[in-house]
C-alpha cells in the first residue's frame, strides 16, 4: 500500500477507456483476457446446465425426464461446449493471456491484433455451435465418430463441426502468439531458466495447440465434406475406414487433454511456491516435464482405440507409450509435494485449491494407468470409469486449478481482494461435491455401466443417486465464487500491488497493472521464486539461498 501512496495513482488498464468500444476493439492483452473470462464463464454455465439436466435424468434407471433424443443432445452439447469452448481456452486465454506478458516483463503479446482476432474467431465459432444447439441440437457425442456422424445422424453435425473448425483457428493463433512472445519478447535478464513455471507450462501448451489443432481442423472438414457431398471418406460402404477417423481425431484429442491440464499444472506450481513461500523444488525438472508431456502426449492417442478394431501390434505399442507419458506427470506431483517440505505454509484459498488439485490429479492420473493397461481398458473402455477418469483430470484438475489461479490473481486483475472466508467455504464445497459426484462413477463404470446411457439397468441406481447428490453440491460450489467475486469488484478490500508478498514480476507492478504493464521495462537479475531463506533471516537484503542441496542448480 505504501508504494501506491507515494506514487501518483497509476492509470490502470481498466481505466484506460470506459466505452464499450474501448473494450471490444482493445489490443491490450489484459482486456482481452477479461473478455475471455466473461465469455468462457458464460460457456461454463451453458455446459453446466446441460450436465445438471443429465444428472437429474440419471436419478432413475428409466428415461423419464427427457427423451432419448434430448438426452443424446444434452451430453453432446455438454461435451462440445465444455471441451472446446471452456476447457481449451480456460486458463490459457484468461490467466495466460493476462499474465504471460507481465511475467516475462513485456508490454504486450507479440501480436496484439491477432490476439483480439482470436477472441472474435472464438465468438464466431461459438455462434455457429450455439446456433446448432438452439436449432435442434446435435446428437453424435463430442467425438463425432463416423459413420454415425456422417451417415446416420439427422442433426446439425455440419454447423457444429464448422463451429469447432473455426474455433480451432482461435486456438492456433493463441498458441502461435504465446510461442513467439515467449521466444522474442522477454525482458532483459529473463533467461529461459528464469521463466516462471506458469510460462513454461503455457509454452508446452502452445506447442500442442499449434501442432495438434490443424489435424482436428482437417479431420472435421473431411467429416463435413463427407456429409454434405454424400461421398465416402470414412464410410465403409464406399471403401472408407472409420478407424482412420478415430486415429486423426485422437491425434488431436489426446494431446488436447494435455492442453486442458498443462496450464493447470503451471498455475499449481505458482500457487504452491506462493503459499509455501518457497522455491519450487526441482524447478528445471518441473519445467522440463511440461515439455516432455507436450511431446510424449502425441505418441499415445491409440489407447482410445484398444477395443475399436485396431491391430494388436499397434495396441501393444500405444499401451507401452502410454505408460511413458505418466512419468512426467508423476515427476510434477513429487516435486510439488517436496516443495512443501521445510516450507512456511499459509493456508489461503488459492492453496486449498492447489492441494485439492494435487489430490484429485493423483487419483485421476493413477486411474489413467488402468486405462493404459490393455486388458483392463477392454473392460472399462466406454464406461463410466472413463467418464470419472477424465472428469478427475479436467474438472478436478483443470477447473480446480483455474479457480485457484483466479483467486490468486484476482487482486492483480481487479485490484480487489475476494472475501477469504467465502473463498475457503467454496473451495471445500467444490472438493467434497466433486468427489461425491465422480468417485461413484468409477465403481459404476467397473460394474459395467456404459457412458452415454439414457436408461440403465436398475442395479446401477444407488451409485447414480450418489453422483447426482454430489453434483448438486458441486453446482453450489461453482455458483458461490460467481457471486462473491462479482461482489468483491465493488465492495472488496483494496488489494495493493502485492497482497501475497510474492516475488514474481506480475507483483512488481500496480494492481490493476497500467496499460503497458510496467512504468519502465524491468530488468531481471535472479531466478523465480526467490523467497527469503530461513538460513539468512535477519539479513533482509540477502534473499538468495546460501546452500544448494545436491548438485542441481536453478
Amino acid at each position, binding site marked *: 500500500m505504501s508504494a501506491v501512496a507515494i506514487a501518483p495513482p497509476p492509470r490502470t488498464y481498466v481505466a484506460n477507456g470506459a466505452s464499450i468500444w474501448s473494450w471490444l476493439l482493445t489490443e491490450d492483452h489484459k482486456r482481452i483476457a477479461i473478455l475471455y473470462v466473461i465469455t468462457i464463464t458464460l460457456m461454463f454455465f451453458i455446459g453446466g446446465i446441460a450436465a445438471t439436466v443429465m444428472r437429474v435424468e440419471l436419478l432413475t434407471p428409466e428415461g423419464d425426464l427427457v427423451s432419448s433424443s434430448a438426452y443424446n443432445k444434452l451430453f453432446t452439447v455438454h461435451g462440445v461446449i465444455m471441451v472446446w469452448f471452456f476447457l481449451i481456452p480456460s486458463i490459457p486465454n484468461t490467466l495466460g493471456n493476462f499474465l504471460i506478458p507481465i511475467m516475462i516483463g513485456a508490454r504486450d503479446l507479440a501480436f496484439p491484433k491477432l490476439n483480439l482476432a482470436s477472441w472474435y474467431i472464438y465468438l464466431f465459432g461459438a455462434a455457429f455451435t450455439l446456433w446448432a444447439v438452439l436449432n435442434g441440437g446435435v446428437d453424435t457425442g463430442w467425438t463425432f465418430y463416423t459413420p454415425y456422424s456422417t451417415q446416420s445422424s439427422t442433426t446439425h453435425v455440419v454447423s457444429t463441426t464448422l463451429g469447432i473448425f473455426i474455433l480451432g483457428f482461435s486456438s492456433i493463433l493463441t498458441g502461435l502468439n504465446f510461442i513467439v512472445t515467449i521466444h522474442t519478447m522477454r525482458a532483459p535478464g529473463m533467461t529461459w531458466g528464469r521463466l516462471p513455471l506458469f510460462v513454461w507450462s503455457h509454452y508446452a501448451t502452445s506447442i500442442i495447440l499449434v501442432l495438434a489443432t490443424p489435424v482436428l481442423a482437417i479431420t472435421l472438414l473431411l467429416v463435413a465434406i463427407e456429409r454434405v457431398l454424400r461421398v465416402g471418406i470414412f464410410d465403409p460402404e464406399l471403401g472408407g475406414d472409420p478407424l482412420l477417423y478415430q486415429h486423426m481425431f485422437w491425434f488431436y484429442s489426446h494431446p488436447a487433454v494435455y492442453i486442458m491440464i498443462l496450464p493447470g499444472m503451471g498455475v499449481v506450481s505458482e500457487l504452491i511456491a506462493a503459499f509455501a513461500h518457497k*522455491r519450487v523444488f526441482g524447478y528445471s525438472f518441473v519445467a522440463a516435464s511440461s515439455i516432455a508431456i507436450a511431446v510424449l502426449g502425441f505418441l499415445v492417442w491409440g489407447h482410445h482405440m484398444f477395443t475399436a478394431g485396431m491391430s494388436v501390434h499397434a495396441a501393444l505399442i500405444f499401451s507401452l507409450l502410454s505408460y511413458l507419458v505418466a512419468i512426467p506427470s508423476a515427476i510434477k506431483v513429487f516435486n510439488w509435494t517436496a516443495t512443501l517440505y521445510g516450507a*512456511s505454509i499459509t493456508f489461503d484459498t488459492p492453496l486449498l485449491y492447489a*492441494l485439492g488439485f494435487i489430490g484429485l490429479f493423483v487419483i485421476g492420473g493413477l486411474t489413467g494407468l488402468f486405462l493404459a493397461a490393455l486388458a483392463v481398458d*477392454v473392460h472399462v473402455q466406454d464406461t463410466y470409469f472413463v467418464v470419472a477418469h477424465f472428469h478427475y483430470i479436467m474438472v478436478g484438475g483443470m477447473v480446480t486449478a483455474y479457480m485457484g489461479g483466479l483467486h490468486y490473481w484476482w487482486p492483480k486483475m481487479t485490484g480487489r481482494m475476494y472475501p477469504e472466508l467465502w473463498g475457503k467455504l467454496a473451495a471445500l464445497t467444490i472438493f467434497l461435491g466433486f468427489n461425491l459426484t465422480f468417485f461413484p462413477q468409477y465403481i459404476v463404470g467397473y460394474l459395467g455401466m456404459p457412458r452415454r446411457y439414457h436408461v440403465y439397468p436398475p442395479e446401477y441406481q444407488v451409485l447414480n443417486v450418489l453422483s447426482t447428490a454430489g453434483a448438486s453440491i458441486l453446482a453450489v460450489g461453482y455458483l458461490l465464487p460467481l457471486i462473491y467475486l462479482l461482489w468483491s469488484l465493488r465492495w472488496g478490500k483494496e488489494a495493493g500491488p502485492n497482497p501475497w508478498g510474492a516475488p514474481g514480476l506480475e507483483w512488481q507492478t500496480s494492481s490493476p497493472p497500467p496499460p503497458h504493464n510496467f512504468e519502465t521495462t524491468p530488468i531481471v537479475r535472479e531466478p523465480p521464486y526467490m523467497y527469503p531463506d530461513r538460513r539468512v533471516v535477519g539479513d533482509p537484503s540477502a534473499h538468495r539461498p546460501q546452500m544448494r542441496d545436491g548438485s542441481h542448480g536453478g
Partner: protein
Amino acid sequence: MSRWLPLMPPSAATSADRLDALFLFLVASSALITLVIFACLIVFSVKYRRRPGNEVARQIVGSWKLETTWTLIPLGLSMIPFFWGATLYFDLSSPPDNALNVRVVARQWMWKFEHPDGQSEIDELHVPVGQPVRLTMISQDVIHSFFVPAFRVKMDVLPGRYTTAWFQATTAGRYRLECAEFCGLDHSRMTGWIVVMEPADFANWLATQGTQSLASQGERLFQQLGCNGCHRADTLARAPRLDGLYGQTVRLQDGSQVLADDTYIRTSIINPSGQVVDGWQPIMPTFQGQLSEEQLLTLVEYIRSIGPAPGAPAPEPRPSPPPRPPIDPYGGGTPIPSPLTPAPLLPAEQSPSPAPAITGSPTR
C-alpha cells in the same frame, strides 16, 4: 451391501477372474501410492505451517538423486501392468481353435446372433458352460460395441469389416449384454442377455430351435447367385476354386500373399477386384449393396465349411492354374446375374463336397 450397493460386477467367464486379478493389483498399488502422497501432503502441511518459529521457509533448490529415483522407479514399476495387461489382451485377441463360432450382426438397435447350425436369436445369446465361444461380428450401419460386463469382454462391431471376440463362460446364469459405443437414438436400449447354460441344457435348447445350418443356407445362395458358374473345378472355370480355400494362403496378382479368412472372403465378394488372385482376371462383379450382412455371413460360413478339414497340414500357397480364363462374361460393370440366371453349370450334388480327400489338396 453387495445387492444394495454392488462394488464388483458378477464374474462368469475365465477372462473375468484373470482380469479382476490385474484390476485389484492396480487398485491396491494405486491406493498405496495415493496414501503415501496424501500422507506427505498432510504431514508437511501440518508440520510446516506458518507459525511462530516457522515464519520463513528453508530454501531447497532440488536434488538430482531424488529426481532420478522418482523418475526411474515409477517407470520400472509401470512395466508390470503393461506386460500383465498386454498378455491378457493378447489372449483376449486369440480365440482357441475349438471355439464354437457364433456370427453376430449388429444394427441400430438390436443384436442378431447366428449359431453354426443356423439357429438365430435376437438380443439374446445362449451359450454352454465350459465351451469357448468365438464371435465373428459385423455391423450393418454404424459402429456398435459388444460388451458383457460379467465376462469383462468388449469389442467394437464395425461396419464393413469383421471383428472378433471370444469368451469361455464358467457359471450358468443370465448376464447383461450392452452396446458400449454410442450408436444413436436408442443406444442405451441396445441391450440384451447372454444366457449361459449347462452343456446338456444347451444341447436341449439347440435341438428345440432346429433350423437349416448356416453353411447350407450359404450353399443355396451360392447357387442362386450363379457363383458356381465361374468358381468350378472343370476347365470352364473362370475363377479360382473355393473348396479347400478357407484358412489357406493365397497369392495375389501383385505378388503379395493373404490369408483366406472371413475378412478376405467377405471382401472378395463385395470388392472382388481389390484382391485379385494371381493367374485370374478381375472379371467378378461386385456384390456390394446386393447382399445383406446375414447373407454374406452364410456365404462365408459355406466357404468355411468346404475348407480343409480341421487339422489338415498347412499346404503351400495355392498355385495359379495354367489355363487363362478365355472370356470376360460380364464385360466389366454389367449388372450381376439375378438369382434367376439359368442353370448353374454344376449340379448341386456335384458341388464340392467337404471331404478333404477330394477337395483338400491344393496341388491338384
